[in-house]
């Protein structure tokens, strides 16, 4: 025993003398995909950044009695047992460059269009404590999407978290992009200064490039940051990217600015987190997701708020469903966090109704609180008429039109017209005034 300790001490002194081990270092003893077990790192902190000698980078995910667990975020070469791991004495932080507005970047602060890092960068904490209850304020300013069906009936407020949920190819991302583009129009016409952050969670490079060019074409990049993780990144990076995006948003909010954050999408994020959890040996729960899957998204989305300093973070998370089922585990978890949801349905989409919003099941929990008086008055009337039409339609679909009471016939006719008027092509935003003009007549009571 004593000789062993003596050996250790003399070795350490030797290392310090020869200056070969300025930082504390340890050795990889186990490699399991992107999770490493490292021995010898005795003095590291939880979530500290570590480097794997010339091969990659990671952070401390767990401290055990004799070893530590490291999650790899960056890997240049395959890591083997015996590789040297160095502690850095700093927490793992993301790198952000203010000049990344208009560019595609990742959490390492790299301009992905050129492959170089930005000139001026700052380190930012990946996860800040959530804004305390007493520092929040009521959400009551509109965040206009330019889409009549949303702005009129299911309005979104600055500081609201509004979920966009639906199957593949129902136009979920499109609604988010429409909203980002509309912020440019709000800026041009009303001088509103909203910064947009688009967060891609494990998307393909092609998808990201397409979104970039769409936004570029519509001059939306002058106020938009794209912070992305591609499906080539390691799962820990994919899982941290939304937090980094929100941390950047918090920087803007602290400067009393309004931020719109789009997270595309959280189902992929949940699946990615499930992979990490199962790989690191956590007990699976419902649908094999770990028990803290709710907390994972709750603490992320709770960053959306109207701060009392005047700044705000609005979040539009996207969730992909299967077979139009919004009652599966992840979807209901997220619905129970957000302040409402816009449900897109394949049925409506194939009927040609675009945006393919399923009006019966969409909800905004803030409702009229975020609308101006005119929009609120008109919106509640139109929504009531439309919903009552949709419900009645189901029951009376087979009834003979001629035998209906005139009241009912009028209701059916009007409902159909409302539905028709709500159709809107992509990137054709309507201002509040245009929406009011378009629907004023339909909102009149006909009694």
């Amino acid at each position, binding site marked *: 025993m004593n000789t062993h300790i003596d050996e250790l001490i003399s070795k350490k002194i030797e290392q310090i003398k020869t200056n070969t081990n300025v930082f504390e270092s340890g050795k990889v003893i186990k490699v399991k995909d992107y999770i490493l077990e490292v021995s010898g790192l005795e003095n590291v902190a939880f979530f500290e950044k570590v480097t794997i000698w010339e091969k990659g980078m990671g952070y401390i995910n767990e401290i055990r009695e004799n070893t530590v667990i490291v999650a790899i975020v960056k890997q240049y070469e395959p890591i083997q047992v015996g590789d040297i791991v160095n502690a850095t004495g700093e927490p793992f932080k993301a790198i952000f460059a203010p000049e990344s507005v208009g560019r595609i970047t990742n959490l390492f602060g790299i301009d992905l269009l050129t492959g170089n890092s930005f000139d001026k960068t700052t380190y930012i904490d990946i996860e800040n404590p959530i804004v305390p*209850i007493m520092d929040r304020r009521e959400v009551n300013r509109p965040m206009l999407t330019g889409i009549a069906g949303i702005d009129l009936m299911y309005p979104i407020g600055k500081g609201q978290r509004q979920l966009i949920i639906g199957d593949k190819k129902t136009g979920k991302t499109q609604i988010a992009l429409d909203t980002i583009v509309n912020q440019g129009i709000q800026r041009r016409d009303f001088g509103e200064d909203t910064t947009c952050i688009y967060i891609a969670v494990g998307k393909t490079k092609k998808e990201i490039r397409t979104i970039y060019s769409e936004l570029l074409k519509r001059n939306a990049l002058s106020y938009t940051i794209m912070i992305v993780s591609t499906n080539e990144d390691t799962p820990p990076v994919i899982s941290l990217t939304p937090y980094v995006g929100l941390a950047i948003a918090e920087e803007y909010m602290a400067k009393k600015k309004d931020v719109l954050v789009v997270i595309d999408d959280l189902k992929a994020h949940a699946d990615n987190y499930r992979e990490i959890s199962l790989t690191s040996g956590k*007990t699976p729960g419902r649908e094999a997701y770990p028990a803290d899957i709710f907390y994972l998204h709750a603490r992320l989305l709770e960053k959306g708020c109207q701060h009392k300093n005047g700044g705000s973070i609005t979040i539009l998370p996207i969730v992909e469903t299967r077979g139009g089922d919004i009652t599966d585990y992840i979807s209901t978890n997220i619905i*129970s966090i957000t302040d409402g949801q816009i449900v897109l349905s394949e049925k409506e989409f194939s009927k040609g109704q675009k945006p393919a919003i399923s009006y019966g099941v969409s909800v905004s929990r803030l409702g009229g609180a975020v609308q101006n008086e005119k929009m609120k008055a008109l919106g509640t*009337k139109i929504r009531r008429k439309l919903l009552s039409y949709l419900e009645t339609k189901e*029951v009376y679909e087979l009834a003979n039109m001629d035998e209906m*009471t005139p009241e009912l016939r009028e209701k059916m006719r009007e409902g159909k017209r409302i539905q028709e008027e709500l159709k809107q092509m992509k990137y054709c935003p309507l201002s509040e005034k245009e929406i009011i003009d378009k629907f004023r007549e339909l909102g009149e009571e006909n009694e």
Partner: protein
Amino acid sequence: METVGRILEISELNVKVLLYQNNLHIKDVITCTMNEKDYEFEIVEIEQNIAYAIPFERVTGLKKGLEVSKKEKGLSVEYSDQILGRIFNSYGQPIDNEKIIESTRTRNVYDRNINMKEISMNNEPLWTGIKALDFFAPLQKGFKMGLLGGAGVGKTVLIKEIINNVYKKFRSNTVFVGVGERSREGKELYDEMEKDNLLDKMSMVFGQMGENPCSRSKAVYSGLTLAEYLRDEKKQDVLIFIDNIYRFVQAKSEIATELKRIPVENGYPATMASDISEVEERINSTQDGSITSFQAIYIPADDITDEAVQAITTHLDGQVVLDRKVAEKGIYPAINVFKTNSKTIDPEKIGNKHYDLVQETLRYLSRYEELEEIIAVLGIDELSEEDRRIFYRSRKLRNYFTQPLFVSENYTGIKGQMVDIKDVLIDVEDILTGKYDEIDESKFLYRGTIHE
């Protein structure tokens, strides 16, 4: 403070501590300091000289080898008359940035257990002014009422409406416990109460969804401790609102997973039933005062057979179930009348008339459900005269039980209304006997009474 041990292992929600002596107990609180930041942990498991503890907050930056010391009194809440109008975190500390609470006494949050002798029953009815609730699931003082629903079907709206109606009407002392719910809603409730000058009789405790599971699970205990003070020492009738008790179970399962305990179905901890009992058994009325509780219960994945939901509902005296299928039709509150019930639906308690009307209404509505399926295939014209009558009257009944709520005025644009149970009984009888057969069904939507 004396040091009691050293940190050996750290993971997100679990810290292993080497103890110097065997003088610690489960539920003791230990603390340590790192980079001028204090960390606190609660001991949940002891094995010889090794203890496992769960951190109150995030552990980022924590290191192995740090010395820990024991905090006297464990997790306890300071209280006095001044708790009313204040807002606390899960660990009983005021977070409204106001003055400290003076002339306090302290209670450990786990200490109070009620024995059978203490329990007292009270049969005074308690009307909420919400038609569907008073009609299908009438309440009594000292009741435990569950409000069940999946995501986004209106649990929080309903609980806020009850606060609005019951708290404003009776002005009894109230504790609101926010567990794992939205911070925005917590702040809005506070703002609304402050604006209406109603904070003077309400304390709030929040462990919201952005906080770690330890914090979320402790909010319930702290809230209950405040309610018990009002009952035991102030000898008052107390209302307690818990939004949402399911989140307590959820937080417990997160902790259990981190402790590597073997779970039961769907990842819930094996100790779930006893965890729930521990809390629910404290919510009881004694000779000194009653505790009436309203507990929102989240239904995960819209699965009402979920173990946690079932384990909670066994403790309830009544339940209101909110249903997505009803909400999709634009009927709010989206009550599923068949799953909604109460121990008071008994002719001895509510009288024959009310009882009979409930039974008849349920008969109509269940026939209506069957008819809906027939109509989807054959259309209305094919129904018999009797069925057609049931069909139209049921739609009127269904519409009648919608109600303009005070708290959703912003959303509906209609002014909220409270309806007396006597009026509800008259209206329901009139609809059932056909008095309104000539009136269009849409006239019954979102209004108070009809007969006036």
